[in-house]
């Protein structure tokens, strides 16, 4: 069995999980009380209109029929229409998804860019003030929830020093202005990621620094930077990449709160608003897309993993 066969197997195994998530979300929504019918009518609520709306939406149908209908339309790439706005869910979702992915990738990149060098520095100078400083800051990063990091950043860099905008996003993601809006929310997302990466890198680095191949590289007369970057770094990256898959969902949880703190128009806020409005098709649509996103991230991690760690490739071929 080669790597691609292994990946195909993993890919197929993930599909029932996505279906399971969709089912769990559907089952929970069955218990959620209320519909947007009253909300749409505003001040004057007419019970007859409410009844007609519920019938029109098909919410009076038995759960099994509703589930099969929804599942059927999803298989035809149709997520249905929002009960509140009447627009197709996919049309509402896609621009929001772009904003979330943009912020997520930026946050992830910052988390790697801050966390890995910090971890390496503290590992090559263990038990110095530098090491202690990194360890302390990392502990802060892990114990502070994402939205609190966001609030603190907002207070310092947007209100006190007015370097970055307090909240919001530019209408297009493709101009340079969008980056200015994204810096603070991305840093909030990056905070705990950087902390986890730094701790992970430090531990791994301390383990492998005593390995034979590092000693060999040093005794060949290579300078320290070359030893670290060329020989140690690739091995340090393996646990970081593995963790990426595990933390993909916590990044999405964090994004939800960061998007609310910074009024960032992403999927997390869409989900939150949809839950408040009881907009069932939107909730189900967003949940499905998020489940798929996590699935894709994990597949990418598997790919990267087999690329970074030749042992995985060899094992796959032996099997």
């Amino acid at each position, binding site marked *: 069995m080669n790597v691609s066969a292994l990946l195909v197997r993993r890919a197929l195994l993930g599909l029932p999980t996505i279906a399971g998530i969709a089912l769990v979300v559907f089952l929970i929504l069955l218990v959620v009380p209320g519909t947007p019918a009253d909300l749409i009518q505003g001040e004057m609520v007419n019970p007859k209109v409410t009844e007609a709306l519920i019938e029109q939406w098909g919410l009076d149908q038995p759960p099994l029929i509703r589930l099969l209908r929804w599942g059927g339309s999803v298989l035809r790439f149709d997520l249905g229409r929002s009960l509140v706005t009447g627009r197709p869910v996919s049309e509402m979702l896609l621009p929001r998804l772009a904003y979330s992915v943009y912020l997520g990738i930026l946050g992830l990149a910052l988390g790697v860019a801050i966390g890995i060098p910090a971890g390496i520095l503290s590992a090559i100078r263990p038990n110095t003030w530098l090491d202690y400083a990194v360890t302390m800051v990392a502990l802060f990063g892990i*114990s502070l929830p994402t939205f609190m990091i966001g609030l603190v950043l907002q207070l310092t860099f947007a209100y006190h020093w007015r370097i970055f905008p307090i909240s919001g996003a530019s209408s297009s993601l493709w101009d340079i202005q969008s980056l200015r809006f994204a810096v603070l929310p991305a840093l909030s997302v990056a905070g705990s990621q950087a902390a986890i990466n730094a701790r992970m890198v430090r*531990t791994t680095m301390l383990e492998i620094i005593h390995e034979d191949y590092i000693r060999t590289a040093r005794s060949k007369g290579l300078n320290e930077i070359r030893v670290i970057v060329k020989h140690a770094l690739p091995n340090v990256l393996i646990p970081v990449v593995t963790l990426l898959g595990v933390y993909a969902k916590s990044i999405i949880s964090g994004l939800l709160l960061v998007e609310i703190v910074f009024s960032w128009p992403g999927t997390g806020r869409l989900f939150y608003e949809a839950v408040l409005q009881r907009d069932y098709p939107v909730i189900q649509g967003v*949940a499905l897309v998020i489940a798929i996103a*996590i699935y894709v991230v994990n597949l990418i991690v598997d790919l990267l993993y087999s690329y970074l760690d030749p042992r995985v490739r060899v094992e796959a071929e032996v099997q």
Partner: protein
Amino acid sequence: MRQKPQSAIAPLEKELSRTHRFIQRFLRRKSAVLGLILVSLVVGAAIAAPLIAPYSLTEAGESINGPPSRLHPLGTDRLGRDLLSRLIYGARVSLLVGVGARSISIIVGIVLGMLAGYYGGKVDIVLMRITDVFMAFPFMLLAILVVAAIGPSLQNVIIAVGLTGWTGSCRILRGEVLRLREQAYVEAGRVVGASNRHILVYHILPNLVPVAVTLYTIGVGTAILAESSLSFLGLGIQPPTPSWGLQLSFGQMVVFSAPHLTIVPSLAIFSTVLGFNLLGDGLRDALDPREATLRGQT
């Protein structure tokens, strides 16, 4: 004759020295001790709240969103109530959620972990697939959905956080059961004809306790964070209950004119979560020294 009393005491002595070693290992780590101190402070504040809080929960002062002053060391909130007093009472709410939710999670985790690990086969496959589903979905989104279904209140937040936070412990405990199942004393139990239930309850469960305690402690911090996030979104605990997350949620509205209303509850949540994280880390390393040396004594 002289041998007899000695051998009767020996297991007890061994047990004592094991506890002693555990305490020694725990105290050797400064961060673990710091965690213990932080957690003790929060627990102390929660228990002694009526004694140490300078004001009652509802007593309104003269200023609204007032800055720290001599009368109100941490200032006043949006209704003019003393922030320090509400912060002290808030420790009760946070601990209640942390302990309550975590108890639900760990019970679900232990039961499912024992069933999956001990029986294996189809039971294992089905339970692990279900765990996969819950693990693959962001915790916050699931918790928001559950609260939307059962309504926001203190009790329901505990249920929502508890029912969404069991997957990690379940996985680890299952692995632990897989290891214990192969131990000689379990096999011995089976040989003398003990029922599966007997083996699970009397031979496997007691040996899960150290791991479960560690998982429990580390999870309390996460549960408190989840409560504050939910309350921050307005989907958690409702006013007038003095929740730290709720204080943050109102604080955020006036974050620029009265930053102390955001900073103070943030610090409370942060130090509590930090305390439980450090305590959990310390417990884990003291229980499993091999792991500690592997992790480079971080």
